[in-house]
């Protein structure tokens, strides 16, 4: 990875960081923070799904584990919020490693892998909804104490910058993967697992590393969510909504690219807001639209928005370039 590889990231992040200086309404900042949270979850999905070609339908399992871990550690064990954040990421990564170990060792691929991740997320949801430590169906509140030491900020702009910093870190991580042997091997597995093996790629180890990283990033998004709303319940943390959004954003934006998940998350939510503007408060109209976009993207733009933008120009190298 060279400075040239990082330049686009630096420019994009710096420009985005200026936004709160011009936009001060809470509605817009709320919207942007939510987009960043979804983008971060999607960046996680993108590592495993976009680069590795292993489509998880249950990334809520990692998002929720991050959110619950940080919430439980703070409220039940009095752990500092920042430490809770780090441990939440670790817990999510661990959940990813375990689920990955079980599924990849059994040779689950394609639809089977999608199904098993979906089932794991549901198991977690039911457990969280019933267990005492998670507050059961009532969910749990993180105590309001607006101090930076508690990962709570009175100003939404500051929270926006923190979220942006995490998204930027994930961008750098993704770019690092793109430019590394690990990334090349991951893409090789996506394209043809057998051929990758023949070239000396330990496919199990590579996929395990991918799902662990992927789960860790998505768990960070879960922690962020918990810190922003200071509330977690099973429907939010382990609900299908986040599994779906984590997958939709990269596919709409451009799976297997660094910026795809961001562009996807922003486009989806911008469109969702516009739809709400026209259709009023009809529930589900934005998600129905997302569904249409997913079908349309698969049918007409398999490389997402970035792919569409690139079609007029000569091919850029996705992995080793």
């Amino acid at each position, binding site marked *: 990875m060279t400075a040239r590889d990082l330049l686009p990231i630096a420019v994009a992040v710096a420009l985005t960081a200026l936004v709160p200086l011009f936009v001060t309404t809470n509605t817009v900042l709320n919207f942007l923070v939510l987009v960043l949270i979804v983008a971060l979850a999607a960046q996680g999905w993108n590592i495993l799904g976009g680069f590795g070609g292993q489509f998880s339908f249950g990334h809520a399992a990692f998002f929720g584990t991050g959110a619950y871990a940080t919430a439980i550690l703070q409220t039940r064990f009095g752990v500092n919020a920042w430490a809770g954040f780090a441990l939440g990421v670790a817990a999510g990564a661990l959940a990813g490693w375990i689920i990955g170990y079980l599924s990849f060792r059994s040779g689950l691929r394609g639809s089977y892998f999608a199904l098993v991740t979906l089932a794991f997320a549901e198991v977690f949801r039911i457990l969280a909804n019933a267990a005492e430590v998670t507050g059961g169906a009532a969910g749990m509140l993180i105590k309001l104490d607006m101090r930076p030491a508690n990962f709570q900020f009175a100003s939404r702009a500051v929270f926006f910058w923190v979220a942006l910093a995490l998204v930027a870190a994930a961008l750098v991580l993704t770019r690092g993967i793109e*430019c590394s042997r690990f990334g090349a091997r991951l893409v*090789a597995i996506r394209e043809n697992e*057998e051929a990758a*093996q*023949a*070239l*000396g790629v330990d496919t199990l180890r590579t996929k395990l590393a991918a799902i662990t990283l992927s789960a860790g990033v998505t768990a960070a998004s879960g922690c962020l969510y918990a810190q922003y709303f200071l509330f977690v319940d099973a429907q939010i943390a382990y609900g299908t909504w986040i599994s779906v959004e984590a997958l939709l954003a990269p596919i709409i934006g451009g799976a297997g690219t660094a910026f795809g998940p961001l562009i996807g998350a922003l486009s989806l939510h911008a469109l969702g807001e516009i739809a709400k503007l026209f259709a009023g408060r009809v529930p589900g109209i934005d998600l129905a639209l997302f569904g249409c976009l997913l079908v349309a993207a698969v049918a007409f733009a398999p490389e997402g928005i970035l792919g569409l933008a690139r079609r007029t120009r000569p091919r850029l190298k996705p*992995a080793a370039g």
Partner: protein
Amino acid sequence: MLVAESISKRFGGLTALNDVSLNVKPGSITGLIGPNGAGKTTLFAIIAGFLRPTAGRVLFEDRDVTTEPPHRRAQLGIARTFQIVQPFAGLTVVENIAVGAYLRHPRRADALARATKVARRVGLGAELEKPAASLTIAGRKRLELARALATEPKLLLLDEVLAGLNPSEIRDMAPVVRSIRDEGVTILMTEHVMQAVMSLCESVYVLSEGRLIAQGAPQAVCEDRQVVEAYLGRGAAARFRPAGAALA
């Protein structure tokens, strides 16, 4: 270098390989031929680690590798190509080859440099940045070869790299194979194109219906009665033998 000891492989009730042994000498080009369905690809898969034999052992440089997975064997120095080419379709030619080069060169710059070198070697120098999916059949066969070569193997398993090529493409490819051997890579190849086997291989094994029916120098093997009959049917040897010639 490579020794296969009494390899048998059964799929359910079907015996694909029955007590097959072979020995590939270092620095040689050894051929593995036989009619369709003889078990050549199965044997290749067993040697490369994609299948486990029902019985028998695979030894590589005197080391038992029978239970090693394919990626371990690649690390030890066994590389293979696939009969049905398996390019990473979404990647460029050089990226495809780099996946192989990464095995010995963890750093990206080194791997890409190595991949570029190998690409030139097999005649893909002009197509480095093209998507692999855009290559012709001949190009894909070269890519298959280049990727395997980029892992810097000691033993290269070539599964029908010449099949599907036209005569002029075969003429271009054969010297490439020979030059690889001349640089010290031992080669075991299966091939349908007999003319290529005759000109390239020093020693040939013949499989038919899962059994080894002949082995030796290509010329001698081609005159073997069992071999002719395996290819052309029972009685063919007698019919095709020039009148008056003595039976072997």
